[in-house]
Every structure is written in C-alpha cells, then in structure tokens.
C-alpha cells in the first residue's frame, strides 16, 4: 500500500526561534519535509514564528504563516484552509508540545485533522520520564534507577534513596534546560529548585548518574509496517555527563564491537516498536558500561532532531525527507535510496570515512557564564568534518571552528604544567580537547588522560598519533622536511598553515603548499554515497582528503 490518497494537504509546524540548544536542525528538517511532500503533489501549509529560516521562504511551501506558535494561530490556519493532516515531528519539542496542547483542546478533532508521523501517546511516553521508565521496565530494557518528583520534598526524599551522584532532569524541556548534576548534598537544593521551575508541569526526574559510561546514539526510521532501519550510529567521544549537543561526536561508532552494537540495535528496535503507532524518524540514546558492555537506555525521541540532521549529512541518507514520506503512508521498501536512485531506501548506510562533529561555543560573548559543560547544552553551533581517518576528521573539524584553532593544538598553547593540565581536563570545558593534546605533548600518558576524562583510550591514542607527527615535523625546517612525513601529516589532517607554524625557521603556508604540490601530494575528492562505494551514486556529495 503506497501513499495514502486521502491526504491532500498537510500542515507542518516549525520550531520557532533558534535558541542556544539548537543548531538550525528543525529548519533543515522542515524544509526537507516540505519539499518531500510537495514532490508527492501534496499541498503544504507551514507555520513558524521565525521568519529568519529557509523553511519560511515563499518557495518552500504553498502557504507560509508567520504567526506565534499558539493554538489560536493553529485554529486560524485551520479556519482559513482545508487541511487533512498535521505533521508535528519536524519542529522539535516546540512543535510537539503545541500539537499536544491542540490535541488536549480538541482542535484536531474539531477540524477533522489527522496527526501523522507520530501519535500523542508516543510523545507523552517519550517525554514523560516516569512513563518512559515504566515502558522500559515492561519491555525488559534497563534504565538508570530513578524517581519522578513533583515537589521539592519528594525530590529530596528520592535523592536520599538513590544516592549521589545524581541527575535532576526536568520533564518537557528542550536541550536539557534546567537539568543538572548533583555530586553531593550541598548542591541538591538549588538543583531541585531550578529543575522544578524549568519544567512546564513542575516535574523532575531524580536519576542515578552513570558518569563515565560511554554514550551512543542511534538514528532510526520506522514505517507503518513496523520495518525499522538504523541509519547511523554515533559515538560520543565525551562520556556520559555532557549533553550530546556539547559533546564531540563521531560516526560510525569507533570502539563498538558487533556483539555490543547488535545488542544496542535490538534494544533500539524494540523500544521504537513499543512506542505507540507511528511512522517516521526516531533517536535512541544509550549508555554503555565500558567494562561489562551492559547497556542502559537513556532516552528516545520520536521525531527528527539535531542528531538526525547530523546523521543525514553524515551518511547521505535524507532522514527528514524519507520520514515525511513514511508519514503519508509509504513503506521503506517502496522508496528508493535518494543517492543511488537504483537501490532501496530500506537499508542501513555503510560509511567508508569518519565523521566528527565538534560543537562551537561562544563563551567570550557571554562574560560570566559558567563554562563547565554538563546537562544543559551551551554550544551555539557545530561543525561537521569528513576524513578518511579519525585523525584527519578531527583536525579538519578544529580547522573549521572559525576561531584561531589551526588544526588540533594551535589554540593558544597552554602555559600550564602537565600536572595542572591533568587537573584542568578533569572538568569538561569547551577547550578540553585542545588541552588533552597539550598534555600528550608534555608527555602525560594516554592511560592517565583516559582515566581522568573518561574518554575512551582509543581516541586518546589517535590524538597521540597527531602529537607524534607534530613532534617529528618540529625537528625540521621547510627545506629538511622529509616527503613521507609531509604526506603522513597531510593524511592525518594537518593544514599547510599548521605545518608552517610547527616547522622551525620562517615558513609560510604558501611555501608548504608549493612544496607538497611539487611532490604531487594533492587533494583527492571522495563521495558520501550511503553505501561505501558498493553502488554507483547519482547525487552524491564530496569531501577532500589525501591518499597514497
């Protein structure tokens, strides 16, 4: 059964203002969804209060309403237009909350509008910590021990019961707003107060903190026939305790065995299938105990998100576009892979490159702000880089931050001594990755760094490789730099400017460039094609790299 022909017009709800805690992902997904539906001959009506978006460009939808995101606005639109269905999964929590409010007021029933792509019960289960916990218990999936508290006293009582460290998570907030870690009794009162205040329903979850566990995210798609595919697996370089939006993340997962990954895949599929009746995109987060490889489910988001936008770019698989088609009745096996155009959309992308996402913070513009990273997302944007190795990708990411970082390591070399740096990197701050590199340059061991940061030692080893190359380069001037070393440096993501700065003697990036050009060490371009070159790609995109 392909497309549902009773749907002739769809209302897409946008996400409103772009705030700290977002990365324009909902503009991206909303635009994709609008295009995807119009391609099917469906009339698209769009509401967003934010005119500074691509989705509100007149060519994106048949009709655009720049109105406050309120139930009144929705009613106005429904009065003025014949609308068959509403797609609330493209505008983040803001759209879902509005959709839910309208549902409670009977608006959708009144105007005979169907909710597509999600159901309200599913939103509730995903957002309401207690319901989520109960569902996980029912289907046999482990979660961190927790209790829902609706009052300050209740919260205190549960905190005593669970013990420290704890997390306070307010219900129904975006980007972890109002949430915090509580390491001891002294921090509890203010954390509880802040959390209860941030929640629109005055509710928080008091949860055992699994600090130091590894964090993974899976992006999934599900169709009405209950077919589920994993589009992307993302590994957080930073362990549990730092908001994913503030973590350096890597795809595909680098340190995950197949046994552990399949365990995660099975659990994610089970979670998605038990979460009400809906077709579309979904994000599931897990924490993994690195010693036992035991998993606990952290959360499930039955909508497209910042991470699905990243996963789309990382794999070439347009999640929002396909999710919109699933919402109007297609099943995955009826759709084509949008990049190859010949193979099926029901498949799981294979990557032959490494993606690194690095957040960009702007603490220099927020004087006095607490720059310690935690549950609440503080970055104002992110960069994504593609390389043929982790070392290349992370250096490219550093070079793209539009700050003074010239690769990993040239961000104002720290003047701290190694013992001071080791202390400094214990607390996650925006510059931790640069300071880890400083520590390695000063001879601190991989093991020590991994222990104090909770970052998997595989990643620290990779940074050590970068340091080793830098030390080798530093022994030379532009004239004596060996060809093999120059090639090795380029393959590991060193920029010409970065190499010039490391070499002794006066050397410019032009000189490095001319030298390598003469040696034939030049860029090659590789495709992002969803399939690791297995099939020919019709609409791929490219990244540059260096090969032998």
């Amino acid at each position, binding site marked *: 059964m392909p497309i549902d022909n009773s749907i002739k017009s769809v209302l897409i709800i946008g996400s409103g203002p772009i705030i700290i805690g977002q990365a324009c992902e909902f503009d991206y997904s909303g635009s994709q969804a609008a295009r995807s539906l119009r391609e099917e001959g469906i009339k698209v009506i769009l509401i967003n209060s934010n005119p500074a978006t691509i989705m509100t460009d007149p060519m994106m939808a048949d009709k655009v309403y720049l109105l406050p995101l309120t139930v009144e606005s929705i009613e106005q639109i429904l009065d003025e237009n014949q609308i068959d269905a509403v797609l609330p999964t493209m505008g983040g929590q803001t759209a879902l909350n509005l959709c839910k409010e309208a549902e409670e007021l009977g608006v959708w029933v009144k105007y005979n509008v169907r909710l597509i792509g999600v159901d309200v019960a599913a939103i509730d289960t995903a957002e309401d910590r207690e319901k989520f916990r109960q569902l996980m218990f029912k289907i046999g999936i482990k979660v961190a021990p927790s209790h829902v508290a609706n009052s300050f006293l209740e919260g205190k009582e549960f905190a005593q019961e669970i013990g420290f460290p704890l997390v306070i998570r307010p219900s129904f907030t975006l980007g972890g707003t109002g949430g915090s870690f509580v390491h001891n009794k002294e921090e509890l009162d203010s954390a509880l107060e802040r959390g209860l205040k941030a929640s629109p329903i005055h509710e928080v979850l008091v949860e055992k903190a699994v600090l130091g566990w590894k964090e993974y995210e899976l992006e999934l798609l599900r169709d009405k*026939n*209950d*077919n589920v*595919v994993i589009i992307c*697996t993302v590994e957080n370089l930073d362990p549990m305790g730092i908001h994913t939006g503030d973590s350096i993340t890597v795809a*595909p*997962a*680098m*340190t*995950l*065995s*197949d*046994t552990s*990954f*399949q365990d995660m*895949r*099975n659990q994610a599929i089970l979670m998605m299938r038990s979460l009400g009746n809906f077709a579309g995109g979904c994000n599931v987060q897990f924490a993994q105990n*690195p*010693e*036992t*490889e035991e998993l606990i489910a952290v959360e499930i988001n039955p909508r497209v998100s910042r991470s699905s936008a990243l996963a789309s770019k990382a794999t070439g698989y347009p999640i929002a576009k396909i999710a919109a088609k699933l919402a109007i009745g297609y099943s*995955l*096996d009826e759709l084509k892979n949008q990049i190859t155009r*010949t*193979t*099926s959309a*029901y*498949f*799981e*992308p*294979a*990557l*032959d*490159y*490494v993606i690194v996402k690095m957040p960009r913070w702007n603490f220099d513009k927020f004087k006095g702000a607490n720059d310690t990273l935690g549950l609440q997302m503080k970055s104002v944007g992110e960069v994504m880089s593609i390389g*043929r*190795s*982790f070392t290349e990708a992370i250096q490219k990411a550093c070079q793209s931050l539009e700050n003074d970082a010239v690769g990993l390591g040239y961000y104002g070399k720290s003047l701290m001594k190694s013992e001071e740096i080791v202390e400094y990197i214990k607390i996650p701050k925006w510059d931790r990755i640069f300071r880890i590199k400083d520590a390695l340059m000063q001879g601190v061991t991989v093991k020590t760094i991994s222990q104090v940061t909770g970052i*998997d*030692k*595989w990643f620290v*080893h990779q940074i050590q*490789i970068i340091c*080793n190359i830098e030390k080798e380069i530093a022994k030379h001037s532009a004239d004596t730099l060996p060809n*093999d070393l120059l090639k090795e440096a380029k393959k590991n993501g060193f920029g010409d400017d970065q190499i010039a700065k490391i070499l002794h003697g006066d050397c410019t990036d032009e000189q490095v460039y001319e030298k390598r050009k003469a040696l034939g060490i030049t860029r*090659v371009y*590789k495709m992002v094609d969803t*399939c*690791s*070159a*297995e*099939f*020919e790609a019709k609409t791929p995109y490219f990244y540059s790299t260096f*090969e*032998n």
Partner: protein
Amino acid sequence: MTHSTQQAILLLADGHVFYGQAFGKIGTTTGELCFNTGMTGYQEVFTDPSYSGQILIMNNVHIGNYGVKDADVESDTVKIRGLIARNLEEQFSRFQAKGSLSDYLIANNIVAIEGVDTRALVTHVRTKGAMNCIISSEITDIEKLKSELAKCPDMDGLDLASGVSTKEEYELGDTSSTLKVAVLDFGIKKNILNCLVERGAHVRVHPANTTLSRLKEFNPNGYFLSNGPGDPAALPFAINTIKEILAEDKPLFGICLGHQLLALANDIPTFKMHHGHRGLNHPVKNIISGLCEITTQNHGFGVDPEAVRKHANVEVTHLNLNDDSIEGIRLKDKPAFSVQYHPEATPGPHDSRYLFDDFVKMMKS
C-alpha cells in the same frame, strides 16, 4: 594506524598496483579480491570459513579498534587469505579484549596491507568485477609478483568447501533432546550451530562428503546444509546427497552455499556473480509475510533467477530489494527451504533469526 615503514604492494590480476604499509605477517599471499562494507565485527568476518581463498578489503576505514576476543570467532582460525584496509589499528580499546589485531594476524599467519586507497580499490572491483590479487610485504619486483599471482587458481569451478569442512563428526547440544539435526558441514559458522542448539536441538556435524546412510544413522528430525566457500557446482557429491535427503521428506534448511546446493539439487543452475554481496546491510523482503529484514551477506555465487521462477516445484520466498536477486526459496511439495543470506548473522543484524524458529517448528510438526 601503524608507523610501519615497511612497504607492501597489492597487485591485481588486471595489472593495477596499489601501495601501502605492511601489517600482520610479513610475507606474500594470493586470493580472490572481494570487499565487505560492514562497520562492525571484523574478527567474526575474518574467521568465517566462507571467506576461504579470499583477500578481503574492509571498506570501513578503521579496523582493529577494539582488538580481538576469543569468543568473537566463527571458526577456530582466521580464514581470509589476506587483508586490505585504509587504517589497521595496533592500539585498541576494549576491556574484554584479549589482544591486538596486529598480534592476532601475525599469530594466524595473515599478510595484510594498510594505507591503501580502499575507496578507489572498491570502486575498481565494483566496475571490473571480482579478480585475483597478490599482496606482498617482501617482494617488490612487479614481474615476480605477476608470476606468483598467475599460480593462484580461479574461483570459478573451485571446491573450497571440502577443505574447510570438518574432518571428524562431532555433536553439540543436549544429547537427550528429541530434536535432532544432521548437519552437512561445508564450512559452517559457529553461530549457526549456536542458533540450533539454543533452540533445543541436538546436532551432529558431518564432513561434506558424508553419505545419506551415515546421516540417517543419527536418526535426525531434520537436515541442515551449511554455508561455505567456493563454487557450489564443484560439489556434485553433495548435490547427489541432497537429492537423496529430499526423497526422505524430512525438514531441510540451507544457508548460503547450502541454499545454492538446494537449488542445484533441483536442477536450478548457479552462477558466479560480478562481485558478490558482502556486508551487514543488505535489504531483503520476505514476500510471503511482506516484512523486510536487514541481512548479513557473504556470497560470490547466486542462483539463476529465471530458472527458479520457471521451476514448477520451487517458490521464491525472499527477494533482495537492491537488485531483485533470489534470497530465499522453498519447495512446494516438501518441507525444504533455504536462504542466500545469513540469518545467524555474527556479525550483523538479528532480524532473520525467525528462520531457525521456523525450521524447529517444521521439525516438531
């Protein structure tokens, strides 16, 4: 990645040369070139007997990150003939790991090359098709490599299964079980046996050339045809045995090579594919139930789709959603079925484990 300065060379049968660095054992190896797109489970892949005779390109760019572990194997030794990758990692991270991939490959005498532009290489294989190749970290003379490569036999018509099949019979599972499965081993993966034993079966595993009369002495409730390497058409003895098994009217289940053999036993020809299917993301539709499954695949031969469709007594049960190739068949008049892909996975998704349940149900009814 390593900082080995020892160069290694990869020469393809069509004359293309790729350079990289030596990894694993220092030496020379030949085999048929193929690629695997999976992003997890390298150790399970390397120990899969179906890879015998093959030199494997791993498309995923970092291999070796989580080391090796005794439990993560599909047979007792590494079965690939050689390994090609972009970055092979000496440094690994996993609490449960026993050692590094590098030491593991050396202990298993596997020659590998890293630093290769694997994407260019895979695109080449995709375009030109499967071909033989040679990797060497000791010979630098291209002419010498060419003459060594010429000695490598063509995969078409090659019986590799007999070489990896068990030499002795062995039994697994609860010996008091009333559910008895006679397994014909053409290079079986450990987890297939686990999947049967987990479901309460008592299995006896037999060498590939075992006769029906010997199989029957086990008094089995059902027969299983395993996966394995090489050309299925090069196993006429096994095809004959399967014809005899079919006459018994007992449940029969085949995987991969076992699927191809079931087809051949019904006079459906098999053919050598252009470059095969190898990975953990192959989309298959069960056309009986209408549901889809993401499957693990590893095959360089396939069954002739036209001959299947024309066959009066054979029905297609599963299709590949990428290229419409035949992924599963069943006999109309007998309890016999088979799939081209790997429902036991390892590595790979567990979507298709229901096939083992189906087989058990068949044997119980």
